[in-house]
């Protein structure tokens, strides 16, 4: 699959639109879902997906093979999404402060039942910061190793690990809060 994807990029660099069709079909759903997990807005996510695929088309010849194709594409999606978030008005979304969220974090066993409720998990994930949602999505939806996640989001591996740790704590606090309110 990886070799096939590299071949597609090579053909795209020569202007082969049938290769673009195949590449788009292979990656569109995955890239859209990643963007959507960060933006919480299908309207904007469709716009950013278009920007990502356009950049892939324009820069296909610049892919150097130092990472996998999927890492390269998701990295472009990450940066395009960050650009979109920065253009939004400040204060548009309220996000959990991970430092605050860690105060009085409950035990894992206490929050397990809430973590098995899809709606409550979705609500709590939505309240994470963009940086924390990215890591959660890449680790748990994409099942990527932390090194590859670090390449995608452009930070050291240790930062990826600590972001995931803080995200987990924030989720536990949020889930416990919903549980205490009788919402799970």
């Amino acid at each position, binding site marked *: 699959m990886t070799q096939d994807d590299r071949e597609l990029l090579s053909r795209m660099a020569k*202007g*082969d*639109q049938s290769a*673009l*069709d195949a590449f*788009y*079909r292979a990656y*569109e*759903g995955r890239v*859209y*879902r990643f963007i*959507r997990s960060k933006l919480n*807005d*299908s*309207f904007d996510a*469709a*716009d950013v*997906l*278009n920007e990502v*695929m*356009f950049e892939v*088309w324009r820069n296909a010849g610049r892919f150097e093979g130092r990472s996998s194709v999927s890492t390269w594409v998701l990295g472009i999606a990450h940066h395009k999404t960050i650009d979109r978030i920065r253009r939004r008005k400040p204060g548009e979304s309220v996000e959990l402060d991970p430092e605050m969220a860690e105060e009085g974090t409950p*035990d*894992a*066993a206490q*929050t*397990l039942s809430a*973590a*098995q*409720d*899809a709606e409550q*998990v*979705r609500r709590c*994930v939505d309240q994470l910061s963009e940086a924390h949602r990215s890591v*959660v*999505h890449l*680790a*748990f*939806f994409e*099942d*990527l*190793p*932390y090194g590859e996640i670090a390449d995608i989001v452009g930070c050291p591996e240790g930062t990826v*690990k*600590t972001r*995931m*740790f803080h995200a*987990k704590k924030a*989720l*536990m606090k949020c889930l416990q809060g919903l549980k205490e309110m009788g919402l799970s």
Partner: protein
Amino acid sequence: MMADNGKKDEALDLLLPWYVNGTLDDGERRQVEAYLERSSHARDEVELLGALRQQVKDETIEASPGALGLQRLKRDMKQAAAQPGNFDRMAGKTVTVASFWRPLAVAACLAVVIQAGVMIGVGGFGTPDSGVTTATGGSPAVLQVTFAPDATEQQIRDTLQSAGASIADGPNALGVYRLRLVDAGGTTVDEALATLRASGDVVTFAERN
């Protein structure tokens, strides 16, 4: 010794999410497995992380743009190639602007006319006291819709009025409009969504924003 174990356990805690997703290398995985054997805290964490991972995987979202998105991409590629000084990568020739700009410009104008017509229509039927909001009103967009290609402005206007909604934004390149609820209408999002979905000959897609 205790301090060393504590520090090591903290480092191993950071690896647990990647133990759960199965991407640790052999050395790290063996260290985590030894940690799990001696720590009930670690076992609880792994169980919780496994549940969270499953929920993230199972979450359903709306369909991605699919074929419409590819059409949009190709249209944008053509537009970019038509910019002065840009060349079509496939043919290595400058693309004739008029060959595709004209229909795109016509389509864009039609979209603006339809949107303006809907906005004027909604505003026109509202009285100063009715609280009917125009597209520049303050309430947030809560719904997304696409209209049938052959839907008339009158049909769109009637549908929006019956749903208690007005256009807040759009269309984007996929033809998606964002709607807000009319402030004084008293309609809930669920009610508006049900009304829009029931208008199958006019509304082809309706979902929460």
